[in-house]
């Protein structure tokens, strides 16, 4: 900060800081001076000549973006010569720029068009001087249509000065100045793909590929620019915690995750990572291995975050939570922190829901799950009633609870209505996995899994671990369209599962009442009509997979205790609980329902995110402010100067350490989790791959002349 100075601009006396330029001072006071090469985050260069003004007592025009305010200055922004210079500069730029605006993807958001609208058309008959350079769409993420470039140099400054990368530069090509890639491709120019160049480009010259543009269309700036955070149902601040990991500040990384979810470590093992599906690094090669980074951070939890967690005073209100899975425990956790007294009714013997009874222990160690549940219960007013089934949800309101939170999950496996589905040796996914957890499950030598999702993969893995010699998996979907994630499908294949894609299974065959095989048949295209699968069977492709155990893994339904009618809530087709609002409201006031029982089988992270919204709504219902946001991690300074990393664009996704196949199947009860995650080195390598998309949000959004009129003369 400099001194306070007083100057006059267009007859208005304004106070400014002597470190401010005339342009900044004018804009701050709502006085618009046209400017194009200037950008709030970049050093001014004074090259576009749009911001020239007249200063009393000074010969010639003054470039307002590079002239600092001085006491007593008298500035005229509407000086005739200055205005004519602007018009000429604008004329000149348009003579190199395509005349047709409507075909440009930046149409309506172009600063050149906006400024030309402001300064006005002179009608000057200057010769056109088009830039004959083809569009360059070969680079990932960023595309260049430099025939639209007006050489304001904002992109070059953003890349060089701000980011310290220098992947693009000015160069004379055939006697003409151009902005060019500093190498034969952005990857070879060590581009960090931060898209700062895209953000600052005033025209349609540097943009993101249409696919990316389309994806972010309609989102807010923050959501559009940071797709991983947007993609995460709980909106965990992914780039922030990855940056903490890169800084070696692992505990802060974990605290960042903690701000949004009470199960960071468990999620680190089993999250379906929607964030990775959104990760822009996929356009370079593969997404950043976010889940493993999360897990790595959780492994370095120092508990310090607990000191910053909010705890509101007791409200005297009581909340009943039905179902102690991830959604129910999340609701209990925040509900108690909000000052309410929470009672969790869990039908099973232990808390955890799908985390315990759906996901096998070789994927999620039970000590991790138990510790996270203990953290939730610790010091909070939560009463747990296990082995306690609630027959009618609304009745709890009459028993003294002020609100009821239903999160019963989907623990009923679907047994398809095909011949042989009740033969001895036919099991269903949920039952099988629950018994796998309790040690009661068994399989034969030849197992066929029907279904191709992540649960099917878990069933297959469990079957091998129970001693199956062969595991076949048949599903309707083609290999690339399977609902299991690529990663989980790969595990299954590594362990020896034989996939039979694009198959239907018309019949389970049996001998003496026991399963002997499954008939599978190829299908053509399939689609859903009125909720039912419709597909063409290809004649003559039938084959029989010999089996002594068949496991249905084709979906799960809500566990509505005993009598659905008696549960007291309006249900939809298939016993799902009917949702009456955005935050889990049900047909009964005071009763909320979330999780798989409402949405159908989704994911742990979706359930947690949904539960956060619902508990917030419940708090408001109970008279609170509904705020469950908390700052558990330190403030983070985002350094815009990311610098050069050699071959950055070619860094490959870091694979976690995984226990090799014979061992992880054979010794599953003793060797710990199959996936060992990252060590320090791997985590640091992987964290370095992050594109830091969030840095773009720190760049000031582009403004137009009509944005400045407010507060003006």
């Amino acid at each position, binding site marked *: 900060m400099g001194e306070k100075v007083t100057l006059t601009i267009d007859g208005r006396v304004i106070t400014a800081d002597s470190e401010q330029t005339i342009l900044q001072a004018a804009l701050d006071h709502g006085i618009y001076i046209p400017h194009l090469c200037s950008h709030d985050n970049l050093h001014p*260069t004074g090259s*576009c000549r749009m911001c020239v003004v007249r200063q009393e007592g000074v010969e010639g025009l003054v470039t307002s973006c*590079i002239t600092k305010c001085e006491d007593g200055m008298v500035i005229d922004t509407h000086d005739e010569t*200055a205005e004519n210079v602007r018009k000429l500069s604008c004329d*000149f730029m348009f003579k190199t720029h395509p005349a047709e605006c409507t075909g440009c993807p930046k149409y309506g958001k172009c600063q050149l068009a906006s400024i030309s609208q402001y300064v006005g058309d002179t009608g000057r008959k200057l010769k056109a001087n088009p830039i004959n350079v083809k569009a360059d769409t070969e680079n990932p993420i960023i595309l260049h249509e430099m025939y639209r470039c*007006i050489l304001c140099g904002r992109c070059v400054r953003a890349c060089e000065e701000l980011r310290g990368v220098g992947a693009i530069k000015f160069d004379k090509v055939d006697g003409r100045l151009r902005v060019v890639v500093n190498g034969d491709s952005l990857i070879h120019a060590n581009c960090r793909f931060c898209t700062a160049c895209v953000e600052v480009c005033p025209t349609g010259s540097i943009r993101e590929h249409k696919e990316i543009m389309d994806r972010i269309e309609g989102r807010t700036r923050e959501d559009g620019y940071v797709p991983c955070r947007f993609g995460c149902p709980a909106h965990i601040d992914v780039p922030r915690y990855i940056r903490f990991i890169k800084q070696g500040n692992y505990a802060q990384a974990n605290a960042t995750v903690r701000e949004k979810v009470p199960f960071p470590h468990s999620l680190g093992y089993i999250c379906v990572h929607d964030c990775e599906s959104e990760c822009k690094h996929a356009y370079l090669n593969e997404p950043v291995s976010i889940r493993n980074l999360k897990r790595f951070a959780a492994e370095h939890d120092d508990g310090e975050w607990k000191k910053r967690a909010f705890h509101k005073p007791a409200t005297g209100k009581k909340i009943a939570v039905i179902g102690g899975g991830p959604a129910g425990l999340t609701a209990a956790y925040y509900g108690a922190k909000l000052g309410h007294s929470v009672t969790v009714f869990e039908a099973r013997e232990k808390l955890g829901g799908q985390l315990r009874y759906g996901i096998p222990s070789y994927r999620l160690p039970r000590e991790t799950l138990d510790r996270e549940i203990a953290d939730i219960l610790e010091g909070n007013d939560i009463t747990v009633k296990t082995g306690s089934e609630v027959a009618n949800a609304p009745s709890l309101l009459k028993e003294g609870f002020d609100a009821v939170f239903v999160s019963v999950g989907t623990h009923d496996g679907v047994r398809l209505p095909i011949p042989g589905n009740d033969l001895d040796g036919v099991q269903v996914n949920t039952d099988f996995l629950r018994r796998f957890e309790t040690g009661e499950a068994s399989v034969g030598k030849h197992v066929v899994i029907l279904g191709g999702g992540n649960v099917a993969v878990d069933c297959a893995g469990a079957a091998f671990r129970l001693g199956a010699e062969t595991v076949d998996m048949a599903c309707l979907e083609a290999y690339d369209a399977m609902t299991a994630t690529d990663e989980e499908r790969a595990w299954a294949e590594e362990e020896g599962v034989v996939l039979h894609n694009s198959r239907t299974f018309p019949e389970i065959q049996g001998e003496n009442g026991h399963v002997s095989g499954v008939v599978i048949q190829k299908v053509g295209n399939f689609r859903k009509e009125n909720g039912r699968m419709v597909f063409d069977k290809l004649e003559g492709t039938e084959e029989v997979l010999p089996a002594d155990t068949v496991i249905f893994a084709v979906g799960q339904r809500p566990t509505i205790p005993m009598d659905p009618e008696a549960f007291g809530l309006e249900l939809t087709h298939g016993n799902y609980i009917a949702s009456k609002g955005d935050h889990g409201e049900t047909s009964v006031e005071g009763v909320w329902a979330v999780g798989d029982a409402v949405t159908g089988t989704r994911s742990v992270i979706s359930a947690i995110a949904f539960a956060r919204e619902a508990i917030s709504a419940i708090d408001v219902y109970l008279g609170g402010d509904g705020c469950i946001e908390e700052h558990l991690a330190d403030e983070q300074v985002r350094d815009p100067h990311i610098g050069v990393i050699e071959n950055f664009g070619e860094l490959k996704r870091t694979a976690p350490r995984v226990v090799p196949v014979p061992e992880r199947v054979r010794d599953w009860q003793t060797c710990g989790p199959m996936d060992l995650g990252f060590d320090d080195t791997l985590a640091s390598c992987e964290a370095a791959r992050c594109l830091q998309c969030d840095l773009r949000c720190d760049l000031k959004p582009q403004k137009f002349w009509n944005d400045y009129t407010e507060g003006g003369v």
Partner: protein
Amino acid sequence: MMKTADLRDLAAWIMLTDAPAPDLSPESAKKADFLNRHGQNLKKQIEDAASREEAVLIIDLVSEEPGSGFNAELTERAGERMKAAAAALAGAIGAEKIIVAAPEDISWAPEGAEIVRLECSPVLREDSALFHILETGELRSCPLDRAFPSQGYKGLPTVTVGAEDLLRLCAMAEPGYTETKIVIIRTGDGASVAEVPTGTTVGELLKAAGADAPKGVLAGGVTGTFTRNPESCAIGTGSMFDSVRAFGEKDCMADQTARLMKQALDLSCRKCVLCREGSWHMAEIFKGITEGKGKKEDLDMVMDIGPLITAGAFCSFGQNMAACAVSSVECNREELLTHIVKKKCPAGVCSAFSKKTYVIDPAKCTACGDCIDECDEMAIEGKRKFIHMIDQDMCTSCGKCVSACDEEAIVVNNGSVKVPKKLTKVGKF
């Protein structure tokens, strides 16, 4: 070395002298109360640098148009005096580093100086541009305004001088100093070097040099101005020009201006819109005029955009190159209009107006094909039994086909020969 101009009484050889260098004390350098080559007060620079640590002395021998030869001439004629001045100046500011920015063909350098080889460019007359190119190798005029005071080269206290500034320092230390300016005089006979007292007019200078009543006069080069009244154009120390050029009847002013503007386009650092695009439009307009494509409105356009470029360009290079174009229209309007309206180049320089139009007389052509074989440009169209035709867009008027034709059918058309517009059989036209 160039010729020494014989200016008789007008000459004042004070800076360019063979006399041994005077004994310069660092103190004497501090009296340098004049504007240096970059338009900065040298005394102020010296005082500032002397009061701070790590001062740098930059000797600028590159801020001239390529081919100017001004700095080369000075270093050759008075190199020792320049060294003495440089040593005194370095002493005065306690320079820890001396940088000589020089083109390949200048070997002069004071002892201990670091030589940086650069191509000559008048853009480097801006301190900021010179510092920037020394720091980064990139020719680019940079913000240098009151708000962003020049921090000097690499942010160090810096004194910048040209060759002439050093010679002036020497001259000032000697008794009987009068202010002079060194100028290169260019006429049809070549270049010569002169030194005259400031206040001498360009007219007096040219008269003394024997270039009496030239058709046109250009004070300076691409950043200079054409002048109609050389008698009222006084030479001063701070003037932006090192040379005065007199044009004679053999020179075409349209062609000369077109060359200057092409040079301006090539020399522009291209950073600011007005100079980058303005020099292109100026070059295109004058090129068009020399090629017979000029329109009257072109001159209006120059007078319209020129003053605005001068008012709005980022640095003095852009401002002055536009002024050069404007001054050409002002001084050479008649000759330019002759090109535009009468489609003639009075000096006979612009080849577009002097091109001979060869045609094949359809009455004499026998369609033998000899001319087709002879033409390097493939400008002759024709097949067996069809009258051959010359494509005037492709023809370069080399005349080779004339001698190849045994029928003497190929002639320079004075308008009397009518030729077919499409392939026509021999005898049918």
